[in-house]
């Protein structure tokens, strides 16, 4: 008996081993190794971004210094902002999440391991892509916000902006992929008993942040696509000379850009809450209010974007709305800050390095928050706009609200990642230098800003009273950099000769501290049972005890060092954490790497415009998609096991082919992304249509083909309804007929999209309005084409193995996208054809 158990344990561990061999690196899809790569890569970008900042500070250390020329200076501040925002903070926080979320949740991996790998590779290639522009001496120089018309072809003819635009799109894909993963992972893959009110705060933070990423990054992807089309002079979205509108870019950019601040800040709130709680030796004060503050911030964060545009001449009441929201958002931030302060007050704080960084961050963030309330007021902002006061404000918010918490999180979790403690003495020096250096560097910027020093200008004349402030700032920046350097030394020394960390060096409350440091690849060979918000503080055991729900006990038993020959993890109910099913997780895959190579080639082809490069990109990506969706052997094993098991024992089913599958939930997130993209195109349409432009608007397009298209879309909807009915109610169905009808109608919609566009007889290169119509119709057509691609997979299953639950799952996911496609078409047709008739 014992022998067979040991055998099973060995098999289980072998199943969870990372792939070996020379190419194992490219096939690994486990969350922990990928998270470590993510952290190392993004920290490297952080260092590079920091060096760019130091060069800028050298240039500004004295008046009219000749360290760099103005063109280089433009490149420096553009790349500093871009690097820190897109290549460091977001990826780094996602890396944290990749590593820690499954551990905090008491599960074995994230729901889509291949997507984890794809996100990493696309992010890496996107980053390299943007930085490769330095090799050609054409680094982007339009600011991290790339305002038009400066970034249009006319004023930025070089390829620098294209590098920025396209590289960013690659990195954005990575962020959205990671967000989908987090949403499904946190909602569906947790330890039994972990109801929503027991979810660790870092998980809440990541759940909310990921929701924000879906709604914020999608407009940016649409916006950068519009910008690239405008730069290729195929459209005129932002070109005022043709009835486009430069302000449209600012709206789209900041509807991403402001939530972005909170997308960076909320995970930091999660980290700080864990750190403050652990080192205060008591639960964080009012968990409920912490959570509601994060939810409130997530919504309010979307209502602030216009405060970046106060100086553009919008209507006073319009600005008032956003000033009101900007004031209101300080309420949840204050709730969080008071939560931490009262936790420390009521606790018995242990002053270790993570807590120092945590408190240092809170102090700095409060200063940034207060100046934030100042610049939320329109009259003050008009004075401070584009001065160093704003530079000081945003660095106080971001370094206090994000960088210090990241360092707190590093000091807190690195012992878990590496198994070695970090040096405490060096840590204190690290904190002291960074804290002092930061304040010395950035506080004087408030004053130089109030004295009128403008941002983004490479030099300032002597005799304006700015010399001293700038010299102090430069000294502070180098002290800060020295602090960061000490961190690297500390990591190096810790890895080489650090003290063993043990499982739980900090006496933490959450599940990650119950595992070895570093944790085994399977993370939880025995699934823990959660009965409290602070399981390690409140529970005597993580094993089932008498009185536990029998379903929980059965689930834990079923998953004890099992399944042995394929990777499986528990799926639970979203609200209460009741065991529902078992998810199959793939073991390894080369396709994420290959797909990211293909995507990168495609993005390069957008820059070089050589036909064979395009074809190569399409071929590689296409091959990767096919490989990705090809049946996985271990999943076949899992399905076969499911089929033969049964009998009297209560066993959890495999989550495949129905609405409990992770894929279905992931597709729901995809629908949200589609809706957001549509909303962005609609906003562009109404914005440009509403503009009193010099170019006369075209007449409402004729109805004929549009009517036909609407009928086909309706038919497509009916076919989808039939498909879902067959999936849900007709067990013997092969689904071939409804899928065939759906496929035909979707292909027809692809073709009709061309006809609908032709029928409008508009010229997208001639006006902004025509561009926005092309945007809507093109989006609907592209979506139909993607839907047709998915349907090919569903049809292949229906023909080859109609009884296989995986085929049913693919068809179910297709039905969601097909419904979304119908809805998009109906909205697009109503907008383009009916709205001009209604509005006259």
């Amino acid at each position, binding site marked *: 008996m014992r022998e067979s158990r040991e055998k099973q344990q060995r098999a289980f561990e072998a199943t969870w081993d990372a792939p070996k061999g020379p190419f194992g690196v490219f096939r690994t899809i486990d969350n922990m190794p990928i998270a470590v790569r993510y952290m190392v890569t993004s920290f490297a970008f952080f260092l590079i971004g920091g060096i760019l900042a130091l060069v800028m500070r050298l240039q500004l250390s004295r008046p009219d210094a000749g360290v760099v020329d103005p063109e280089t200076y433009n490149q420096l501040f553009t790349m500093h902002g871009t690097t820190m925002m897109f290549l460091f903070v977001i990826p780094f926080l996602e890396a944290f999440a990749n590593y820690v979320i499954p551990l905090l949740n008491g599960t074995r991996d994230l729901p889509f391991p291949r997507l984890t790998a794809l996100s990493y590779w696309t992010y890496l290639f996107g980053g390299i892509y943007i930085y490769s522009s330095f090799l050609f001496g054409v680094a982007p120089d339009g600011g991290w916000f790339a305002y038009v018309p400066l970034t249009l072809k006319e004023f930025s003819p070089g390829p620098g902006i294209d590098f920025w635009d396209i590289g960013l799109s690659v990195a954005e894909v990575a962020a959205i992929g990671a967000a989908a993963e987090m949403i499904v992972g946190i909602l569906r893959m947790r330890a039994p*008993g972990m*109801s*929503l*009110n027991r979810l660790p705060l870092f998980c809440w933070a990541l759940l909310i942040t990921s929701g924000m990423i879906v709604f914020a990054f999608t407009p940016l992807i649409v916006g950068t696509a519009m910008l690239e089309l405008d730069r290729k002079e195929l459209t005129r979205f932002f070109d005022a000379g043709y009835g486009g509108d430069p302000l449209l870019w600012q709206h789209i950019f900041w509807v991403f850009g402001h939530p972005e601040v909170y997308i960076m800040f909320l995970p930091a709130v999660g980290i700080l809450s864990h750190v403050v709680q652990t080192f205060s030796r*008591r*639960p964080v*004060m*009012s*968990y*409920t*209010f912490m*959570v*509601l503050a994060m*939810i*409130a911030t997530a*919504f*309010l964060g*979307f*209502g602030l974007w*216009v405060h970046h545009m106060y100086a553009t*001449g*919008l*209507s*006073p*009441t*319009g600005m*008032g*709305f956003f*000033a*009101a*929201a900007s*004031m*209101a958002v300080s*309420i*949840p931030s204050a709730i969080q800050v008071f939560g931490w302060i*009262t936790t420390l007050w*009521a606790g018995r704080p242990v002053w270790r390095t993570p807590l120092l960084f945590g408190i240092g961050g809170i102090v700095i963030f409060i200063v940034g928050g207060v100046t934030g309330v100042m610049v939320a007021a329109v009259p003050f902002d008009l004075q401070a706009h584009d001065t160093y006061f704003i530079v000081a404000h945003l660095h106080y918010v971001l370094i206090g609200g994000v960088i210090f918490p990241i360092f707190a999180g590093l000091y807190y979790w690195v012992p878990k990642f590496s198994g070695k403690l970090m040096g405490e003495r060096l840590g204190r020096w690290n904190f002291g230098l960074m804290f002092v250096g930061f304040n010395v560097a950035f506080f004087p910027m408030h004053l130089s800003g109030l004295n009128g020093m403008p941002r983004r200008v490479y030099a300032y004349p002597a005799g304006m009273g700015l010399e001293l402030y700038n010299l102090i700032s430069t000294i502070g920046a180098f002290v800060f950099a020295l602090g960061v350097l000490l961190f690297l030394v500390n990591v190096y020394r810790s890895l080489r000769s650090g003290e063993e960390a043990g499982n739980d060096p900090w006496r933490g409350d959450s599940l990650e501290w119950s595992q070895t440091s570093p944790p085994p690849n399977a993370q939880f060979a025995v699934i823990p049972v959660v009965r409290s918000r602070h399981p390690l503080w409140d529970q005597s055991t993580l094993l089932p005890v008498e*009185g536990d*729900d029998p379903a929980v006990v059965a689930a834990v038993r079923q998953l004890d060092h099992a399944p042995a020959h394929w990777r499986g993890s528990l799926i639970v109910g979203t*609200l*209460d954490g*009741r065991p529902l099913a078992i998810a199959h997780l793939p073991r390894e895959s080369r396709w994420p790497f290959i797909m990211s190579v293909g995507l990168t080639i495609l993005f390069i082809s957008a820059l070089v415009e050589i036909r064979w490069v395009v074809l190569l990109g399409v071929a590689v990506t296409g091959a990767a998609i096919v490989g990705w969706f090809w049946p996985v052997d271990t999943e076949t094993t899992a399905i076969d096991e499911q089929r033969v098991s049964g009998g009297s024992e209560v066993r959890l089913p495999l989550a495949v082919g129905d609405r409990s599958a992770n894929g279905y939930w992931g597709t729901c997130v995809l629908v949200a992304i589609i809706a957001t993209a549509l909303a962005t195109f609609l906003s562009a349409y*109404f*914005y440009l249509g*509403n*503009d*009193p432009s010099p170019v006369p608007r075209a007449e409402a397009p004729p109805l004929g083909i549009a009517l036909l298209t609407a009928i086909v879309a309706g038919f497509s909807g009916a076919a989808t309804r039939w498909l879902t009915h067959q999936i849900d109610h007709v067990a013997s169905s092969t689904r071939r007929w409804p899928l065939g009808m759906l496929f035909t109608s979707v292909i027809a919609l692809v073709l009709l999209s061309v006809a609908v566009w032709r029928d409008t007889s508009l010229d997208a290169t001639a006006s902004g309005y025509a561009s926005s119509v092309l945007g809507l119709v093109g989006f609907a057509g592209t979506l139909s084409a993607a839907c047709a691609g998915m349907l090919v997979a569903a049809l292949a299953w229906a023909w080859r193995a109609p009884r296989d639950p995986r085929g049913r799952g693919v068809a179910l996911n297709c039905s969601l996208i097909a419904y979304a496609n119908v809805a998009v078409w109906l909205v697009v047709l109503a907008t383009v054809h009916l709205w001009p008739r209604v509005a006259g």
Partner: protein
Amino acid sequence: MKPTAHHATSQTSAQHAGAGDASDASDASDAGVVSLPVLLWTLLGSALAWSLHLGVSYALLAYACTTGWQQGARLALGLVSVLALVCIAWSAWVARRRWHVARVLDQPVDDVWNARMGERSSRTSFLMVTGLFLSLLFAIGVVYSAITLYALPLCAAGLSA
């Protein structure tokens, strides 16, 4: 009169919950169960109302400033604010009612600070309290923006929204 009525309600629910399995009360009991639409409405209804209010108001304003439709616009914007407040109040009212039903399931929180902070241990109570206070926050948000309607000119001279 009113508090008595509530007291009676919670007593009835306490008896109701007591009839079920008290040890598993925080997880499952009829009193604690809220349907998904109710849950979404109580938790996120106020946030959605505020978001829609901001979006619709800004679009209306843009339309008003480009077409010169100013008199009616102010009234319409005020109506949007009132409508948003009504939705938020509705969401808050449902949340408060469901919380009162569910709170009999709260296990005692043996922490003076947390008890004072109104910390709740059952899942439904937690979500309902969250929804209730979110409503309060977003009501403040709507009132803040409504103030600007009466304090500022609608459109800048010669400029569009």
